């Protein structure tokens, strides 16, 4: 039986930063960083240089989700170990899949809706995020809605879970790729025993930093380091401190289920538990190809923050300012919300 430590693996942002400074000012950055990695294991396809140790500390705002994940891992006796030699025992999730159409674009399929109008969110939002959602819905009702996809940016995780279109699972013993054809956006879930990216090297990532283990035929995933965003259009926003635990398994020949629990100390008062489904696509000729968003993207943002087309034959003059990489695609309300998050964190230090 493999022992799983549930000891302290967290660092506050300040502590993590101090550790970084020690490494850098000591002039030993390369050597010290190399010590955090494990040697490549036989059969692993993973890059040795990108394999943080299992007990790599992560910021304290991920504590609850990580402890839930470690508890599941302990209950699974450290997880089912698959090797190349036992590949045939792994789940066969080959084929083409797509989000269950009955679940629409909602993050929680249980959320009600009336026509195109969503009902109340099932998320237990903090007051600031609840107010932000209400303002968003007011703006949508007024015709002012902007989607970062219209800037040809990725959906980003966890919104990524809600996107329609074709999906594939590429399952190997050391990592699983879960691909959505939209923007050719692929999540990489490492199951080779590695820990999360060290804080000194980490930054928000569109699809986060995902590690996982197999509990028999169920893939259990812990994801941190996401970028701020929204769960979907007309859905709540989430902060960059969001983390999730997923349990992904096949229900029947044509259905894969993802049981997702979301923690967000900024946006959620209590974890948000949702269950999503993905259905097998049996249409002949279905194949995932490279998705180039700019091919005929003629959507532009209006001065009031809405979305509009440039139709064929039309020419418009667009005023565009410098793109701040982390915020240019956000709505003004999102910019304000996430700036408040940063200010609150700064005030704590």
């Amino acid at each position, binding site marked *: 039986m493999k022992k799983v430590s549930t000891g302290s693996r967290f660092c506050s942002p300040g502590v993590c930063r101090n550790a970084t400074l020690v490494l850098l000012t000591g002039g030993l950055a390369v050597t010290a960083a190399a010590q955090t990695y494990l040697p490549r294991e036989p059969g692993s396809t993973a890059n040795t240089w990108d394999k943080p140790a299992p007990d790599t500390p992560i910021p304290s705002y991920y504590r609850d989700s990580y402890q839930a994940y470690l508890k599941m891992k302990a209950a699974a006796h450290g997880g089912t170990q698959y090797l190349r030699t036992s590949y045939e025992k792994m789940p066969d999730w080959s084929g083409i899949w*797509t*989000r269950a*159409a*009955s*679940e*629409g*674009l909602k993050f929680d399929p249980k959320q009600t809706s009336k026509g*195109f109008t969503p009902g109340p969110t099932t998320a237990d939002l903090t007051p600031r995020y609840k107010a932000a959602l209400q303002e968003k819905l007011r703006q*949508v009702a007024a*015709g*002012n*809605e*902007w*989607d970062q*996809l*219209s800037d*040809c940016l990725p959906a980003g995780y966890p919104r990524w879970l809600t*996107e*329609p*279109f*074709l999906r594939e699972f590429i399952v190997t013993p050391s990592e699983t790729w879960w691909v959505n*054809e*939209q923007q050719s956006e692929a999540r990489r879930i490492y199951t080779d025993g590695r820990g999360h990216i060290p804080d000194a090297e980490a930054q928000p990532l569109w699809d986060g930093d995902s590690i996982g283990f197999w509990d028999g035929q169920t893939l259990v995933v812990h994801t941190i380091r996401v970028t701020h965003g929204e769960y979907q*259009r007309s859905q709540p926003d989430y902060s960059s401190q969001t983390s999730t635990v997923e349990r992904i398994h096949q229900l029947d020949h044509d259905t894969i289920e993802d049981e997702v629990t979301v923690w967000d100390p900024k946006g959620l008062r209590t974890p948000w538990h949702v269950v999503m489904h993905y259905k097998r*696509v049996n*249409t002949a*000729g*279905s*194949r*995932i*190809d490279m*998705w*180039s*968003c700019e*091919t*005929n*993207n003629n*959507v532009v943002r209006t001065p009031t923050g*809405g*979305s*509009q*087309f440039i*139709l*064929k*034959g039309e020419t418009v003059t667009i005023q565009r300012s410098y793109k701040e990489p982390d915020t240019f695609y956000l709505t003004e309300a999102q910019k304000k919300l996430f700036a408040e998050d940063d200010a609150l964190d700064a005030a704590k230090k």
Partner: protein
Amino acid sequence: MNKILIICCLTALTGAALAHHSAAMFDLSKTVTVHGTVKEFQYTNPHSWLQVLVVGSDGKAVEWGFETEGPSTLLRVGIKAKTFLPGDKVSIVANPMRDGRPAGAWISATKADGTVYNLRPNRPAAAAR
């Protein structure tokens, strides 16, 4: 006899509708039906567009654009890259633009042979007449 093809076994397009951008530019409470000739079919991501020349009462042709989802989603309702060729006669049902420009969110298409492609198949087919 007109051939009617209504593909109704999938509900893919409803969930996927306008997944790359807001639908606020369309008036989803209204539908329009136009009859015209295909000029171009952009069968691509992020959105496919069917460009149709529509001759008005003044005898002048106006180019309309009808937007829908990309190839993989259209394939599931039977629409392929060469389903609509330049010169084909079509009738289109769509949600019009709020600002009155000649475009819309594509709901269904009826070809000259009577074939109907319903792009929102979990709803009653909106065959153009």
